């Protein structure tokens, strides 16, 4: 049975007076992976951020439904607690807050109760092993002085622990070398069956490892073309000029 997790209808979004997203409609079912591709400035990150509820973006018209509910009035933390997750393109550093503490508190917030220390430790060990992360990570400060790759791994680690229903992955592949990319892709694949995924990317290379069900091409804040995985391959080979010609 299909469960519609996310339904975006004719969404328009502005930052200040500048319209960024100009009429996007999209539907993601549980277990589906959607990829959004497009050039810089097309509005890809804005879409992910506005779904998560970033206060800098204003929905000027259209709606976002999550699990059948209009989420316009939901606070960012309420969206997170309802099972939405955003893997950030540029995660913020929180100096002085240890990764271990941060993970434990986040898991407690999202789940509504603190896991037992022992169960949590075990869960954490497994997830870190899966992502080939060293335990020393836990005593470092959140994203403080992290390399690009380390930040992305921490994002995926959080995704594994928070077990979201809807995962928004914003340029998760950027800044990763081939080995890290494979590990991160395995992480995504591990949750993808139970989750709805929206993957935002420039490149085909992540999509070689995480098979999308649907690929959307975003130009100037609009989806101009949707298709299967072959669309991503075509973009990789031929660039965006031919899609732009369609607009």
């Amino acid at each position, binding site marked *: 049975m299909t469960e519609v997790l996310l339904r975006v209808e004719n969404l328009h979004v502005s930052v200040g007076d500048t319209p960024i997203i100009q009429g996007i409609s999209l539907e993601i079912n549980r277990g589906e992976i959607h990829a959004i591709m497009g050039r810089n400035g097309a509005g890809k990150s804005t879409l992910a951020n506005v779904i998560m509820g970033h206060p800098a973006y204003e929905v000027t018209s259209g709606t976002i439904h999550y699990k059948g509910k209009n989420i316009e009035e939901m*606070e*960012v*933390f309420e*969206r*997170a607690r309802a099972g939405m997750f955003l893997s950030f393109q540029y995660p913020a550093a929180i100096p002085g807050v240890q990764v271990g503490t941060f993970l434990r508190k986040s898991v407690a917030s999202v789940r509504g109760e603190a896991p037992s220390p022992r169960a949590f430790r075990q869960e954490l060990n497994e997830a870190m092993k899966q992502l080939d992360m060293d335990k020393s990570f836990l005593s470092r400060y959140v994203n403080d002085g992290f390399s690009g790759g380390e930040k992305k791994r921490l994002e995926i680690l959080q995704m594994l622990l928070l077990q979201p229903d809807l995962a928004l992955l914003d340029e998760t592949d950027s800044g990763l070398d081939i080995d890290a990319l494979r590990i991160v892709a395995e992480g995504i694949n591990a949750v993808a069956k139970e989750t709805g995924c929206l993957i935002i990317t420039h490149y085909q290379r992540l999509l070689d490892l995480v098979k999308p069900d649907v690929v959307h091409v975003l130009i100037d804040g609009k989806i101009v073309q949707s298709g299967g995985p072959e669309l991503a391959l075509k973009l990789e080979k031929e660039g965006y000029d031919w899609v732009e010609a369609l607009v």
Partner: protein
Amino acid sequence: MTQEAQDAVGDYKYGFHDPEAATIRFDKGLSEQVVRDISELKGEPAWMTDIRVKAYHHFMEREMPTWGNCDSLAGIDFDNVTYFLRSSDKTEKDWDDVPDDIKRTFDRLGIPEAEQKWLGGVTAQYESEAVYHSIREDLEEQGVLFLDMDSGLKEHPEIVKKYFGTVVPHTDNKFSALNTAVWSGGSFIYVPKGIHVEMPVQAYFRINAKNMGQFERTLIIADEGSSIHYVEGCTAPTYSTDSLHSAVVELIAMEGAKIRYSTVQNWSANVYNLVTKRGVAYKNATVEWVDGNIGSKLTMKYPAVLLKGEGAHAEVISVAYAGEGQHQDAGAKVHHLAPNTTSNILSKSISKNGGRSSYRGMLQVTPKASGCRSKVVCDALMLDEDSRSDTYPTMEIGNSTADLEHEASVSKVSGDQLFYLMSRGHTEEEAMGLIVNGFFEPFTRELPMEYAVELNRLLELEMEGSIG
């Protein structure tokens, strides 16, 4: 608590007060007679009475400071302060013997529990004097003296006479003069040569009565090659009128000794907290101040270290949190008086809801102090537009071989940080709490764990209801 007072302090957790049960209470106001009466009541030797009277006259003649927050200082009404209040006739060694109402207070503050778990000794001071005191037997057997200051003077007058007022003379400033005139309570510690006191010893200072002045006097002497960690906590109830806390702390670290003095002051928002803390470090000795200032109406406190012997080291780590109507004027002073001395100063402050925090620092290197190194870092975090942060660093460098670093930063909580944390299920207040705890972490990690946990909890409470 009056509504006015409630509004002034918000959710100050220690704002409760208990009925006053004074066995002796002096009339408000200060005179030479009051000073003599305190001394006589305590049965002090004549030399101490003389010091007190001298200090009293100096206090009367000395002008108020002309720097810092003069407007706020002008609000102190010295005639409306109770200078001495005795709540219990003696200092008990058994917790069960402490009068019930006082015991209840300290129970609520978690003191006896802490002692059982992780302390080498405890003094609990209520108003002017210690009501409870204990020290682990093994420390006592090693010759470690840990007493409240009044008992210290009674039992070891020769040591007190030798060191009292040598680090902070009564002429140092108006408030050190006041303290010297009317001091009561505080801690007296002597650690013999080569003894390392592994577990921290703690004193807890509680003001309960209205318009009370608390003037504890602490003297810690670590003899050659010894070490000790002293922890101090303070709270007061919330009244709509002001109380005055004016302590003097003197530390003496002999050759190769190490003293760490950790404070978490969590006064209610009606307390003037005007404290002089200074330590002397002789050859290869270390003095460390770990100083946390939460609450109070006005704090003026600049823990200082005189590096008198070659190779001595000073460490001052301080945090200040200024909420609504509060001014934290804090900092550090380090005087490099001998060659190859080193110092680290780290100061972190947070201002919120129109609160003001100031860093006031002094770094001195005298001409004969060659080869010194010092690093000063001041970071200020502002949580909103109404708050204020200033930095007043002073440097007097008389020797060109000194290696000095100074960094200062003022930052605001970024929207990106808040959004990131909120996307992980944290409310805005919780997110703010995490950021604030993280900002203070370099300080918190220096505290005994129990204090660190308590401080983090306190800061999280401060963040509650703070976001509109």
